[in-house]
């Protein structure tokens, strides 16, 4: 029986959630960090801040921590930053239109925090910067607006985790993120989502990559969630490069509609989008990917692979390519299916039981070779993926 694509986009209204939350301040930081340590670590946020170039932690609507360790890197509450720097208003709502949908409108009208991160020209971050947006109150609507600016020739690595307290079941997270990668700069952005089964998540992101810039995005979602819908758009200038890797394990009744779009509008710009989804139980995954080539010499490749682990789940894979110039090379590869019997048999011939073999293949499927990250960060991301996969 064919199932209808659920429209998760506009199904949930912000007014069904509450804006009210207890105000906390920097004085509560250590208490909050120790209370939620496990959840924070689960999304890559290390309260000890070791091997990090800076930290940002927000609980509900309160920013508890915004610090940078490395010179030339600044981390602030984005509303505070807007008061401090008048020029910053030019960066608000440029990569994401404020009137895009009901969720961006909600954030525009009732912003509650979010981070501002800027790397000064030529500054190269040694360690990743960590940011965490945490929900501790039931039925809360968290409406953040994040701005990241990587100035000319700079290099910045951000790990961002979003999670909820263990006793929170239901909440709404609206996150507008606008990233500006300037000429010759590099931004890697690794996002780990770890929500509760009744949390509704609507990130709205826009990324502008200037000439010769590089943007690398890794997205990891391993735990059940009510629904997540996002479709970040990246605009690539001349010789700019973008790469996104999305790893999703959808279980229980999760409804996930995730994809990304890259507009190659600068000459010789490049994009590579890789998406791996596993669907089990009654989960519903829509994996989208779209590359638009509108300038000469552009190249893009899209890989969208889904693994079905149950008869009641669904994976809907939507790869899209659009060229508006003669000299664009765009390609895609999409496949959805179950675990290959041949692969299982091969592993049993090496002594694994069928269950062990299936487990090893699933773990392997999620074990995407994360490219473009500094070795230490790459190892850490792989460790997180392995930990999540081992917990399946």
């Amino acid at each position, binding site marked *: 029986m064919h199932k209808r694509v659920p429209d998760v986009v506009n199904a949930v209204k912000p007014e069904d959630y509450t804006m009210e939350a207890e105000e906390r301040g920097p004085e509560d930081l250590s208490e909050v960090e120790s209370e939620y340590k496990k959840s924070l670590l689960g999304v890559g946020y290390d309260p000890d801040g070791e091997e990090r170039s800076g930290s940002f932690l927000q609980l509900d609507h309160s920013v508890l921590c915004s610090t940078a360790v490395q010179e030339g890197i600044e981390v602030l509450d984005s509303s505070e930053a807007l008061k401090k720097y008048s020029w910053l208003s030019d960066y608000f709502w440029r990569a994401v239109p404020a009137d895009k949908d009901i969720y961006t409108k909600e954030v525009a009208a009732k912003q509650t925090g979010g981070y501002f991160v800027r790397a000064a020209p030529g500054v190269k971050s040694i360690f990743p910067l960590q940011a965490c947006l945490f929900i501790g109150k039931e039925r809360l609507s968290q409406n953040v607006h994040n701005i990241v600016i990587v100035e000319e020739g700079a290099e910045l690595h951000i790990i961002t985790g979003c999670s909820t307290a263990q006793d929170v079941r239901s909440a709404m997270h609206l996150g507008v993120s606008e990233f500006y990668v300037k000429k010759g700069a590099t931004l890697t952005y690794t996002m780990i989502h770890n929500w509760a089964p009744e949390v509704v998540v609507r990130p709205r992101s826009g990324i502008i990559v200037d000439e010769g810039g590089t943007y690398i995005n890794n997205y990891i979602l391993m735990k059940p969630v009510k629904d997540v819908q996002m479709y970040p758009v990246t605009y690539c200038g001349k010789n700019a490069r973008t790469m996104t890797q999305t790893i999703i394990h959808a279980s229980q009744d999760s409804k996930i509609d995730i994809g990304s779009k890259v507009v190659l509008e600068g000459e010789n710009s490049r994009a590579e989008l890789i998406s791996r989804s596993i669907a089990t139980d009654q989960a519903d995954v829509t994996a989208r990917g779209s590359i638009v080539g509108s300038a000469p010499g552009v190249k893009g490749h899209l890989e969208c692979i889904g693994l079905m682990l149950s008869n009641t789940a669904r994976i809907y894979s939507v790869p899209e390519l659009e060229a508006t110039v003669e000299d664009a090379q765009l390609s895609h590869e999409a496949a959805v299916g179950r675990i290959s019997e041949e692969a299982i048999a091969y592993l*049993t*011939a*090496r*002594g694994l*039981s069928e269950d062990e073999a299936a487990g090893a293949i699933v773990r392997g*499927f999620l074990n*995407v070779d994360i490219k473009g990250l500094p070795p230490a960060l790459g190892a850490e991301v792989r460790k997180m993926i392995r930990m999540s996969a081992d917990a399946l």
Partner: protein
Amino acid sequence: MLEIENLNLEVDGRPVLKGLDLIIEKGECHVLLGPNGSGKTSLLLGILGFPRYRVTGGRIVFNGEDITNLTTAERVKLGIGIAFQNPPVIRGIRLGEMVNLCRGDKSGDISDETRILAKELHFTEEFLERDVNAGFSGGEIKRSEILQLMAQNPDFVMLDEPDSGVDIENMELVGGMISKLLHRRERPSRRTASGLIITHLATITDYVDVDWAHVMLGGRIGCSGNPDQIIRQVTEGGYEKCIKECQMS
């Protein structure tokens, strides 16, 4: 070591082996010749116990134990190993991890033993980081399969066309390693491992000394005997003629 009695085997409901008998003693190495579709690979996968290869009659006895109804993993634990001809790509599992697995080591960190073995087969450390069989050349597949077997160290080794698509340089290396796996360089009385090698053109016998040769046709073994004689007959007159001559004498 291995006794196959009157084996009937179906693949996806289609009969492929029709009353096959074969005995391989401890320390012996046998080659199996035969045209495409004669059932050679099915015999190997049947011995290994792959679910698609269903025994409908007869039995397989390994070291005195009837293994006909055991799972593949159970048979492997008893000491049966195989080098596949066309193994599948396993995404996300590195060759080094796979070699660890063959030794029963389930950790993700590639062990020193694995690195030492890999060096013997002329693999670089970087090669161990590659996904199993992803983009491997013909020669690399053969060497990788033998590397996995060396880590597993089975008593009974099956090799499906280890000599197809391999250049001379790799052939010498592969042949040398197979000889080592099968204790061919030991005195016969000291050999404890046995082997069954499928080969089309018998090239492997230039590199590995073998005790017996069999010719397979239509799901049965039609002829068995001295490898030099049988290989000569097959190369001169073909499989069917060899079987006819064999049955007349």
